[in-house]
Every structure is written in C-alpha cells, then in structure tokens.
C-alpha cells in the first residue's frame, strides 16, 4: 500500500518544538518582568516631583538645624504628619527674603487662605494602608527609617520602597530601627560608642513591649 501523503510537511516538527520552547521562555519572561517591573523598588524609588515652591530641606533642616517638628508639628500627635500652613513659613519670611520671587506663592497663600500652596505629596501609601506617624515616632522609629536623609536633600526624593514586604521586614525585627525617643528627629544619630543598634533596639522593644503587627492584617489594613 502506498504511504499516505503527509498532511503536514516534515519541518513542522521542528517548528512545534521551537514554538513550545518559545512559549515557555515567554511565560518565564512575563513572570520575571511582572515581578521586577512592578516592584516598589522599580516603580517608586527615586520619585522626586518638582514642588511649587523650591523649599530646601537641606538648608532648613540640615544647615540651620531646624527640628522636623517645627514644621511637621502634628507628627507626634496625629496619624498624619501635616504639611505646615504658609503661616509657619512666615514666622521667619516676613523679615527674611521677604521679597524673594521663590516665596511668591507662600505670600499669596498667607494673604489669601483660599489659595494654599499645592505641595506635591512624595511619600505615598495606598489608601488601604492605615499608617500612623504618631505611633511610629512615639515608639522610637526615626524619620530617617522611612524618609532617608531628608536633611541632605535639596529636593525631597523617595528613597525607600515603602512596599509591604519592606514594612514587614521591620515589623518582624523592630530592634533594627528603634532608638531613644529623644533622637527620632536627629537624622544622623548613631548608637553611642560601645553599643550596637540591636542592643539599644532590643532594650527599647522589651521595655515598652513593642510588638508591631506582622500576621495581623488588620493592624495596618482596614
């Protein structure tokens, strides 16, 4: 009996194999890219919006040594660390650089409450995360842990990922971040000679019974 003519040409075998390998690689690529391209480290770190007023944290908090809480006065009293009203700027700027063009928007906001300065939020959390500044700051977590060395930033930039994996890392081992409360706004604080961060952190953690939520979702999500 004469062999039936093949419906598919022979090279199709190779093509099918190649296509299978290709599909596997594509799936791998999707997984890998899906992971790395959406990580907070990739999409969020480095965010540095231009602010309507070129306020320099480096000058005010760094060189002049102003305490973070002079402006962000609600940080140890409320969940939200407030951006100061123009009045706080005018404590000094009614007299210093009072005609500067850079401060025009501040003067406008000060004169007319309906025209506030529209500062751009840099460090954002999703709306389903209920982060409390008060709780962290009053437990001894420094500003620097989440915001970096803001006192060295001419323009504030997001330096930490602020993703959940990153939060949990610290919630599991808060001793790596805790410091005496009086130094929370001292961004360049280091453990005194002869002690380590872990020793100090553990002591504070035990004395104040600090147990941040790890497996309790409702600790941060409501």
């Amino acid at each position, binding site marked *: 009996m004469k062999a039936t003519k093949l419906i598919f040409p022979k090279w199709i075998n190779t093509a099918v194999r190649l296509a299978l390998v290709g599909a596997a690689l594509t799936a791998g690529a999707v997984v890998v890219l899906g992971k790395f391209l959406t990580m907070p480290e990739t999409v969020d770190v480095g965010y540095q919006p231009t602010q309507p007023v070129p306020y320099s944290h480096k000058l005010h908090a760094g060189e002049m040594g102003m305490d973070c809480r002079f402006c962000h006065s609600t940080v140890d009293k409320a969940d939200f660390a407030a951006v100061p009203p123009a009045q706080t700027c005018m404590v000094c700027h009614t007299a210093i650089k009072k005609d500067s063009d850079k401060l025009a928007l501040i003067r406008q906001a000060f004169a007319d409450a309906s025209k506030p300065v529209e500062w751009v939020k840099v460090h954002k959390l999703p709306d*389903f995360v209920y982060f409390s500044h008060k709780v962290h700051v009053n437990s001894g977590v420094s500003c620097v842990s989440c915001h970096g060395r803001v006192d060295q930033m001419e323009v504030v930039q997001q330096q930490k990922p602020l993703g959940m994996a990153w939060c949990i890392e610290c919630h599991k081992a808060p001793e790596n971040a805790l410091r005496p409360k009086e130094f929370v706004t001292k961004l360049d604080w280091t453990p005194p000679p002869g002690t380590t961060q872990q020793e100090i952190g553990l002591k504070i953690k035990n004395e104040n019974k600090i147990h941040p939520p790890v497996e309790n979702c409702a600790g941060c999500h409501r």
Partner: protein
Amino acid sequence: MTRRIFILLVLASALAGCGLRPAGNTTPLQVHPDMDSQPKFKAQSASAFFADGRSNRPAPLGTIAQGHLNEDDGFVMGKDASGNLIKGNPVAVTEALLKRGQERFNINCATCHGQLGDGNGAVKTRSFGALAPANLQDTRLREIADGHIFDVITNGIRTMQPLGGNIPVSDRWAIVAYVRALQRSQSTNIKDVPAGTDIKAADPSSSPVSAAPSPAVGSSPAASPASSGAASTTKTAAPTKK
C-alpha cells in the same frame, strides 16, 4: 524567534535590575491600581465637594468640639477673669514638665531665640540682622508675667507669627516654665552654689554666657538647667547682669 525573546528577556531584566524609573518628576507608575486611590477625604487633600476646596473641615465659628471645652481662662488664654495676664504658671512645675518644655523649646523656639534663649539662634546668624529675635534673658522679659510669654507664643507679637496652632496649650505652659528655668540658669550667683561644692574649676575670667554649655535635649542632660547640679557651678562665675 527564541533568540529574539531571549535577548528581550535579558534586556528587560537588566533594565528592571537598574530600576526603570528615571529619578525625576514622573508620577510613580501604577501597575496594579487596585484600591490605591479611594474616593474618600484624606488629611490636607483637595475636595471638589466643598466650596473652599478643602477636605479638612474648619470648625464652624463659635463652636467647640465635644470634650475640648476648658473654662479655665488662665490655662487656655493666660488671662484671669478680668482679662489681665496671669503672673504664674497654672500648671504645676515638675521636672517632667521642664523636660517637656526643654524639648518643645528646642523644637519651636531655639531656631530664633537660641538654645539659651539669648536671641542668638540660627535665624539671627543667617539673616544677617534682618530678623533680630528677642533676647529672653532681657531684664524686661525676666520680670514679665508668665501669661505674657504664653500669650506671645499663642498669638505672636511684632514680626513673630502666632504659634498657637502648632503648639498645644499644655506644651505652651511647659515652654513658659522652661523659659523661666533658662532665665534662672543664666543669672546665677555664688549664693546659689550649695555649701561645700568644689568650684575651683570655674575661672572667673572665662566662660561668658555664649560659651556656656548649650542645653541640648537628651545629649547632655547634665548641662540642662532643668537638672541643677554640676553645670550650674561652672556658670556661677559669669553672672549676666544687663
């Protein structure tokens, strides 16, 4: 085909590794928007609903939030029933209050008035005299009523803007108490030294007020006027009489 995918994969991984986001102004990419942005009012955010565009609602004029009413005028306004500034501090002065006052003074006042209250804060130095903060060591201010200091913190004076919105009432009284301690620390004399204290270390010709140890919070509690002791003995040699 496979080779192309492979090259693409390597390139993309390399990009992801370096961070795709160029440092700068671009809004963070939202890969999974999920419920990141919920239509709710958040602190200090804008609102299209209210006429003034704010989501933070100011209290209606003439109202006080429940539980916030305090009828003690002396405590809340620094004035007695007839409207005169009260002389003393309505809060009991304890070491804890002075420590709190020290912390709050260094946060809210020291940038202008200096950590010693002598008016030589960073602002005065940097403004080249454009702003001359008051010297709290001045005799006039030493003798002024506590209620006056409270009132100035609350409502401001001359170029000083009101800070009542930034500093809660109880903290303002803590600051008043600490200002008194600062004034005391800079006007000591030999009679303040407890009998039997060794004061040989103090050299009468040196240690002007500006060189006195600054009462930095926490770092050197011994130098704080809140804790009497060794630190005050070195200052006894240089009483400030102006």
